[in-house]
């Protein structure tokens, strides 16, 4: 191997600083959430304790955190499942290069670049003017889909652009129906990417703020609850909550990444048995 140029070491240092910049603040509040009972929002630490985490579990101390966590979790799962199914259908539709598909494509791009507050305002206005009640599971759910679907669909575009059509042709030549081709050939091949779409669907919904602001009704989701706390809570309990939901997010990300890895490995194993059945 040729030796590393000097620029490699400079760039490595830059990259390390970038990671510090990305993760440093989050790590700081994670440390500060173990602040002693008398401690404040900044260093120095006044001893260490689990005081602020205990506070989170006392209902009256800080609003309805567990209720909002439950809602965010359920909503995240709803958005995730819907995003995966609709993105796959949309991705398959686009492969047909149907007439008018460019309209849908530009709608997707618009959905991605439109300022979130417009979705919030518009959906809120439609519901209030037509006498419907805004609720996180209806208006909030739809508003979040306008943010997760573009990501899901763009991933599907990328996947299908790289998809080798000869697999499908082979299946068809062997007499598979189009449903069988989809179920036993296409879906297994793209399954690792579907886990990626699911990851986007869940986490983007779980953390979404702006699009849920005017569309969730009287029951807050977790990000709304946390933002409400920033205006009236001035103790490290805020950090404790931030640390807990970040840990939760990291666990979910880890879970999805492990699933994706497992599914890629399984695919690699299953793919290598070509010809075995012939013997």
């Amino acid at each position: 191997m040729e030796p590393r140029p000097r620029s490699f070491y400079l760039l490595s240092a830059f990259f390390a600083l970038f990671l510090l910049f990305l993760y440093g603040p989050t790590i700081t509040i994670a440390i500060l959430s173990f602040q002693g009972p008398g401690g404040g929002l900044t260093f120095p630490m006044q001893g260490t304790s689990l005081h602020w985490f205990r506070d989170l579990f006392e209902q009256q101390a800080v609003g309805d955190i567990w209720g909002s966590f439950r809602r965010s979790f359920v909503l995240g799962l709803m958005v995730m499942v819907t995003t995966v199914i609709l993105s796959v259908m949309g991705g398959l539709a686009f492969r047909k290069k149907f007439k008018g598909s460019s309209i849908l494509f530009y709608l997707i791009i618009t959905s991605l670049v439109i300022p979130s507050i417009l979705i919030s305002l518009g959906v809120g206005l439609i519901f209030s003017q037509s006498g419907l009640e805004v609720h996180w599971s209806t208006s909030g759910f739809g508003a979040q889909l306008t943010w997760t679907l573009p990501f899901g669909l763009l991933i599907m575009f990328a996947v299908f652009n790289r998809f080798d059509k000869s697999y499908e042709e082979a299946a068809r030549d062997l007499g598979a129906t189009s449903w069988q081709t989809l179920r036993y050939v296409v879906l297994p091949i793209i399954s690792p990417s579907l886990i990626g779409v699911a990851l986007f669907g869940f986490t983007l919904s779980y953390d979404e703020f702006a699009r849920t602001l005017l569309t969730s009704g009287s029951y807050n989701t977790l990000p709304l609850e946390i933002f409400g706390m920033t205006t009236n809570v001035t103790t490290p309990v805020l950090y404790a909550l931030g640390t807990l939901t970040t840990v939760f997010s990291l666990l979910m990300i880890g879970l999805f990444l492990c699933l994706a890895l497992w599914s890629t490995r399984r695919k690699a194993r299953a793919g290598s048995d070509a010809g075995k059945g012939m013997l």
Partner: protein
Amino acid sequence: MLKNNTFIGWLMALPIMAVLVFFLVLPIAMIVMVSFWKATEFSIIPAFDLGNYEFLFGSNVTYRVFFNTFKYAFLTWVFTLSIGFTVAYFLAFHVRSQTWQIVLFLLCTIPFWTSNIIRMISWIPFLGRNGIANSTLISWGVIDQPLDWLLFSDFAVILAFVHLYTLFMVVPIFNTMMRIDTSLIEAARDAGASGAQILWNVIIPLTKPGIMIGTIFVVTLVMGDFITVRFMSGSQSANVGRLISNDIALLAYPSAAATAVVLLLTVLLVIGVMLRFVDIRKEL
């Protein structure tokens, strides 16, 4: 056959289309409509009234706030592009093993899947009056008094934007760089180009589509933001998004809608210009 394709295509795209029509197209139509309505203290009344727009364009605040919005977008763009490009360049051309490439790339993207609000809050202990930055600077003897402009200022707003959105630059730029044919770079080196010349004349031109996609993400996210500006400036600065959210808080929906229409047109105009430089569908 073609007709059949179109039919099946639309059928499969129907659910996604339905969601977008109901939660994207109709809301935009609603906002455009309400922007012509009138508001009283208690309710909004259907009308065709240009008053909201007259007020908007007649007010100095509007121009200042729009200027601020562009300023945030431009500064954030400069920083996210230079940082994002450097990081992507390092990952694509200096990290040799693919496993490390994936691991380091994931490290850059994981924060994207965690909460923006918490990532903003997490700057408080660092930037506050008694925060890490001030106490470090004082202990080094750089300053005697804590700096007041670290938190709740334009500085904090830009810092937070860069912190939140640099990965929107890293990902598309890295993606385009990975697709550059390495033989092009070798050819340039064989022809006697220096490292800087290769970067400037080969890599940067070939990375342009990724740069454009990252730019579209960052510029639209910053222009449409309202929460970062409100939180990080301590409500001292305003951009268009905050103008809208303030009107909403006062239940002045028609006025909020008029501002929203102007903001949307501005964003679409900016995107329209950028899309002239890149074909997104080809880059996926």
